[in-house]
């Protein structure tokens, strides 16, 4: 037993506020009393340890307050004690479903500060891996969201497809989830012989079974009934809370960094890249955005493969000095992660570690809007709304 260990069984889900009305109309004119209901921190619908305090009037949610911090691992402070090689390893873990995209922001920032030129093959391979990672991320939510709404089958299909993509990702990087394949100046090492062909086969195989989600899930009447017109998020709220990613685009906010501030090889993929938007802003629109984006990412991956096949052989990384120091200064790198805008504000004082590295993660902003979105809905719709916000708890709590 050391410090920080609770000595007694202190209740984890702490506060228990119950306002009890006595007699009809004691609390409200309708005779119902407010109840504060804790969802989480350990609850299947919260994908981990998000806690939400709901104030209920009967079944109607009158107030919702997300309580974050149960997964706070202090990554930003740890960045200050790691050098630029080690940061990659920590930075890919906050959003564990989009590890490659998280790494990308760090290395792009350091490369920009160093003024480093990245080999062409590395840039295209990075784009390819980032899109495969986006498909992996989206497949997870395409499977888990129907699961939360009561449909068990799609998640098995989703994981079957995920395993195929994970196999090629693992072959390249050695990791199934946390690739740690980015290096400042390129990628860790060259790709195995014949890898691009296997990626093409995996992409084709995943695409051939995406109709499971197009038809089985999206065409399901129960699924549509539970998501249509539920949890409508207005575009004004998207702007007010800094919501980004597929959730924002489902509310008609046409913003995608891959098109609006292109990085990697996206400028040359403009004809393939499709920014998927919807106008409805409900749960169904969010799911449709995610699904169509996954389709588009598979197309982008194919486009990257086509381009890579035509490239001259060349290096995939840059030789680095033994001690890598970013010059004094600061820079802000943002990338379009699968779940939204992921930004790193990097301040360097010329040391081998950053002086400060602020992390702007997508889910943190995205779930703040729950406080506006949930009031006025029923408890039964809460799971549908929560799941449609596509968040990762580590991305919220960092």
């Amino acid at each position, binding site marked *: 037993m050391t410090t920080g260990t609770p000595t007694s069984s202190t*209740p*984890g889900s702490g506060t228990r506020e119950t306002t009890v009305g006595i007699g009809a109309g004691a609390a409200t004119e309708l005779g119902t009393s407010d109840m504060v209901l804790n969802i989480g921190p350990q609850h299947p619908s919260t994908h*981990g340890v998000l806690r939400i305090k709901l104030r209920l009037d009967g079944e109607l949610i009158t107030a919702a307050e997300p309580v974050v911090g*149960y*997964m706070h691992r*202090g990554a930003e402070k740890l960045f200050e004690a790691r050098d630029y090689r080690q940061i990659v390893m920590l930075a890919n873990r906050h959003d*564990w479903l989009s590890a490659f995209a998280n790494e990308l922001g760090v290395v792009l920032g350091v490369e920009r500060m160093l003024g480093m030129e990245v080999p062409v093959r590395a840039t295209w391979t990075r784009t390819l891996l980032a899109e495969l990672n986006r498909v992996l991320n989206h497949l997870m939510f395409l499977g888990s969201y129907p699961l939360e709404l009561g449909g068990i089958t799609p998640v098995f299909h989703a994981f079957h497809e995920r*395993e195929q993509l994970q196999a090629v990702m693992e072959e390249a990087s050695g990791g199934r*989830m946390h690739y740690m394949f980015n290096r400042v100046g390129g990628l860790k090492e060259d790709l195995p012989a014949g890898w691009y062909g296997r990626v093409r086969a995996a992409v084709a195989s995943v695409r051939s079974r995406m109709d499971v989600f197009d038809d089985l899930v999206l065409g399901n009447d129960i699924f549509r009934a539970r998501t249509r017109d539920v949890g409508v998020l207005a575009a004004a709220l998207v702007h007010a809370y800094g919501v980004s990613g597929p959730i924002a685009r489902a509310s008609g906010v046409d913003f995608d960094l891959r098109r609006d501030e292109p990085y990697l090889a996206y400028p040359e993929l403009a004809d393939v890249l499709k920014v998927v938007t919807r106008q409805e802003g409900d749960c169904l629109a969010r799911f449709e955005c995610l699904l169509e984006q996954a389709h588009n990412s598979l197309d982008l991956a194919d486009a990257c493969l086509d381009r890579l096949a035509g490239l001259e052989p060349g290096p995939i990384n840059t030789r680095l000095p033994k001690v890598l120091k970013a010059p004094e200064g600061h820079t802000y790198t943002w990338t379009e992660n699968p779940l939204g805008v992921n930004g790193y504000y990097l301040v360097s004082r010329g040391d081998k570690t950053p002086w400060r590295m602020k992390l702007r993660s997508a889910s943190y902003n995205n779930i703040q809007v729950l406080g506006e979105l949930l009031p006025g809905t029923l408890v039964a719709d809460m799971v549908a709304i929560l799941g449609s916000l596509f968040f990762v708890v580590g991305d919220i709590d960092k």
Partner: protein
Amino acid sequence: MDVTPTPHSHGHSHGQDPFAGPVPLGMPDPAAPGGAVEPRRLGPLARLAPDPVKVVLNWGRRYSLWCFNFGLACCAIEFIAASMAKHDFIRLGVIPFAPGPRQADLMIVSGTVTDKMAPAIKRLYEQMPEPKYVISFGACSNSGGPYWDSYSVTKGVDQIIPVDVYVPGCPPRPEALLQGILKLQEKIAHESLPDQYPAAPVPAAALKRPLLPAPAPDAAPADAEEGTAQ
């Protein structure tokens, strides 16, 4: 933790047994002249009964581990992957459908335990009925992992609850979880409840009931009435 079976654990492992240890079958023991020639499990009834029952109980217990997934972070995704069609730990008898900790035998802590989350983990562990087992899945819940120097991360879930099997990796592959489950099942197969939960010595006085004082003469009718009313 090494749960490889040892020769000792194959024989009798009753805590109270004074002759615990490997017993040569059908051979007189020179260290105990006049002692049992037969194997110990053929001894008096008290020794005969627990062993087969123990085997049956352990057999049943190891292959119906209702599992409560304490999914915290990245490792939870690999836990889900292990429960899906490709790896499918249900074939090992791990059933991930426990409605809650009160119905679970096994808790798999997968992910980073933070100081803020730790009380909830301890509380849910305490809600599980005995006998209960814990698998710590992943570097973070083993020791803090990559967050070993973080100000907010608990350095291993074993600081708050006892852990039976540690699965290393960041995150471990689903195959590693399968291996961890097999190790736990080996451990369960060789466990003995008397060793695990040694009975407190019962004083002889506990078996005796003190004499009750005679009821007061005037209170007797009231008692009788109550007795009839019931």
